[in-house]
């Protein structure tokens, strides 16, 4: 089947150490295969973007990175995903611990029906952090990290649902940051947001990059070009091309990539 072995399936040459290493990975939902022999390296403290048309498996790949796909009945993964050199699919891996190290922000904005404070404190509390002062501290830091602190500091105990859509998404980012992950996965985090909110989140990505590795899935080519350092292009479950963002957008190595980024299909 794999007639077009992607020419740039290995990570581009970089001085950075790979944070995540995906090797020969196939993923199945029951009998249907969603990802075909994916190989890539996600460099640490960089922003990596996945682009590609709908249904090509971007979200699936993202969800494999913190094993959220485990929850899907009958799903199956072949190959390896290494986080800091450790195979995250080994039987003895503590999934909950993995998920605190690899946080995720979803396309669908999903604050819990609780207060702003409770939303952010949710993760730390799961890890039995219950001291009020510590929690207050984490909440403040996380909200600051997500650029939301100034806007909500006076109403921490208001319902999270009273925030605007963009604020809710930044709350979700703060919530993910609160457990202090070193990878943050973002699945089309701005697709439901207005341009101003989108701009705020993009701005945020640059500061986040200083502390963690970000993988972002986006539909928006400009966004990928603006924010990411590396870009992977997916098509029908295959990684077609993975390279420097600049290279992908200015001089792609594959015709299909070029067609896609120039808007000829997808």
């Amino acid at each position, binding site marked *: 089947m794999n007639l077009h072995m992607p020419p740039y399936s290995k990570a581009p040459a970089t001085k950075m150490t790979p944070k995540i290493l995906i090797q020969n990975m196939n993923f199945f939902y029951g009998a249907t295969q969603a990802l075909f022999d994916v190989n890539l390296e996600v460099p640490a403290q960089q922003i990596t973007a996945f682009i590609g048309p709908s249904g090509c498996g971007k979200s699936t790949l993202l969800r494999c990175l913190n094993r*959220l796909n485990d929850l899907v009945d009958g799903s199956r993964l072949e190959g390896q995903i290494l986080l800091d050199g450790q195979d995250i699919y080994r039987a003895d891996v503590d999934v909950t611990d993995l*998920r605190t190290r690899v946080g995720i922000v979803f396309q669908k904005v999903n*604050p*819990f029906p609780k207060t702003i404070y409770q939303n952010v404190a*949710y993760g730390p509390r799961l*890890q039995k952090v219950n001291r009020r002062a510590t929690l207050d501290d984490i909440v403040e830091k996380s909200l600051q990290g997500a650029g939301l602190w100034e806007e909500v500091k006076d109403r921490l105990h208001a319902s999270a649902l009273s925030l605007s859509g963009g604020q809710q998404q930044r709350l979700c980012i703060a919530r993910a940051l609160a*457990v202090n992950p070193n990878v943050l996965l973002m699945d089309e985090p701005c697709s439901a947001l207005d341009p101003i909110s989108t701009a705020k989140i993009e701005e945020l990505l640059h500061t986040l990059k200083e502390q963690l590795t970000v993988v972002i899935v986006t539909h928006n080519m400009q966004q990928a070009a603006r924010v990411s350092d590396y870009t992977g292009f997916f098509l029908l479950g295959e990684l077609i091309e993975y390279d420097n963002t600049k290279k992908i957008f200015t001089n792609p190595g594959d015709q299909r990539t070029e067609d896609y980024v120039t808007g000829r299909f997808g």
Partner: protein
Amino acid sequence: MTTFVVRSPGPQNLMASANHSSQAPNIHHSSLNPSPLRRSGTTSRRIRALADRGAAVIVWVGGLATILSIMGIFIYLLLEVVSLFLHSESSEQTSFSIDTTGSNHFDSLAIGIDEYQEIAYVLYQGQLGFYDLATSQLRPSPGMVSVSKTPITAIGRASGRNHHIAMGTQDGRVLFLMVQFRSVFENGVRTIVPSFSMGDPIEIDTDQSPITKIACQPSDEGITIAIVTKAGKIWVAKIEEAGGLLSENETMVRRMELHTPDATTVSTLLLDQLGETLFLGTHDGRLVHWDLQDIENPQLLSTTHIGHTKDSITSLAYLIGDRTIILGTQSGTVSAWMPMHTSNTESGTQLTKVRDFVTHPGAITAISPSKRDKGFVTADDQGHVFLHHSTAAQTILAFHGYESPIQDLVFAPKANGLVTLDAQQQLTRYALDNPHPEITMNTLFTPVLYEGYDQPAHIWQSSSGSDDFEPKFGMWPLIFGTLKGTMYAMLLAVPLAVMGAIYTAMFMSRELRAIVKPVIEIMAALPSVVLGFLAGLWFAPLLEEIFPALLAMSVTIPLSVMAACLGWQYVPKSLQARQRWGLDLVILMIVLVGTISVCLSSNHIIESWWFDGNYKEWLLTVFGFQYDQRNALVISFAMGFAVIPIIFSISEDSLSNVPKHLLSGSLALGATPWQTLTKLVLVSASPGIFSALMIGFGRAVGETMIVLMATGNTPIMEWSIFNGFRTLSANIAVEMPEAPHGGTLYRVLFLAGLLLFTFTFSINTIAEIIRQRLRAKYSQY
């Protein structure tokens, strides 16, 4: 593309939508309807408008009808109940002077009335006259009859349905008079025909001293009389005759003189219906109690002082049933006395004052008990007549007659009227409308001291075989029973249903869930009469048999399940994932079935080990629990079975409706499924689970057939799970056939219905309010 906008329906809305569609129909359709459809646009718009209006009307009418019918039911219930508390009243009062020709100078007299209150008789100064109450005239036949040549010095009226009167004469003899009223139907018209008969004079005391007090009571064995003579003697006697009481046959008189109290102090006499108990009231406030079972050997049982003051006892009467004595005094007090258990006296009982009624302004001259219930009327020497009820401890009505001392008074046989005769020979009849004298808020909802009890108690006992029964309408045993049944049912159902729902929604595989959920929901389709039938006739005896095993299960099942869970951790991961529906479930089933069958098969062994061979005896001796076959445990299973599907189904829905992206959000933060459940899902689903519980609760409260058939319907107030109870709903079902329309029981059953209605209505309302609050707090988007 027809959309029904179901707003809160109301006439304005109806108008608005009609106007809207007819005046500006194009506004929102033109952009939606592409040109090919435009041709038929007008017609379809009209149809749409009609459909819209039709739907609105149907919704509006339906909603209004529902609200109106619920309000109608409520008001109807309320009206039936309110009658219980409406004030009794006297609707008419007729009064006329009686003929007093041919009088002698003794004021002993007696009056009586037939059960239809058409004819009254007056025995006055040795003459008996029958008066037509409608015309206030002396009846021509038998007219005024002289019943004694010698002056009558004392008159005693026997209690009971018949009009037996004993007269004591100036020469120390006793005369018996019996008045009868016969109903004669002629051409469908009822006429009352009075008649009377006299017995031969009987001499009790040979010294011919005038009789000053007399009491008499006929019974199967003869007539018991008690007399006090002017010469200062008290005699009791039993007069037996071979033939009828008043026949010419030879009479046998057995008599005995009593020496306590001093005859000169005796103010009034009282005999019970059997003629075996005599009370003598004295001028110095003593009540002397004699046992006359053996007339030749009377026993002095007790002397009771009625109070601190040396108040004269002026009148005594037994209420129907001969358990309560009503005592009236010179100072106008009226009180009820009952024999109560005590260790102070030899007989083990002591006459004790249990109630006071409203005090008369003057001395009590007459007391007449009702022949229907525990009511009675009292009269005083200033013309007042009061109507009281003993159980209800209330004075219901007061009449302020003609300020002339009332000399005699009788309660009409049906307790719907009364007649008095005062010192000015005014015969006055009062008609009474007093349908529910025994009902007050207190008799319904507070403990009442009933006859034969030593303590005030909440009791429900609406009827019994005998006429002189005191109905007990305490509602608390029923309310208690309702709560008890509901509580035990919920105790079993809530954990099972909610946990089941949690497991099904959160942890079960999708395929298995698709089977389990409908199966449990089908349980709800089982008619409760079938459940009740099975519970009462099959399950209750079975449970009685296997109770020790059940008790053992309550310990062994949790233990074995925990053991299985521990063991599960050692099953290799590769094996764990094998089974399609989850190997864990299969193992759990095997463990459960195994544990249950082991417990069942060792039922007898458990009983002999644990309970010394007989668990019922063991329960009784160790905990003091009486084991009834139909008990709250049976109900908790049977009614649990009825409410589990509702609670399960609604809880499961609300749990599985918690958005998937919230679950992922929680899991992605490193929460375990269990943490996600407890910290997020349960909170989000709480409005749904709460309404599930409330709907289950409402169902259990109103459930009738199961409790009716499987509880034994004993209205007792004990929390023990091993005995039965009676619920409000079952009570209505049990007693409805015995409740005559419009009667007290009938209305009290409506009260039970009203309570039930209010109960479920307020539960549902509160539940809805809380659910709305919860939903506002934890609403999803």
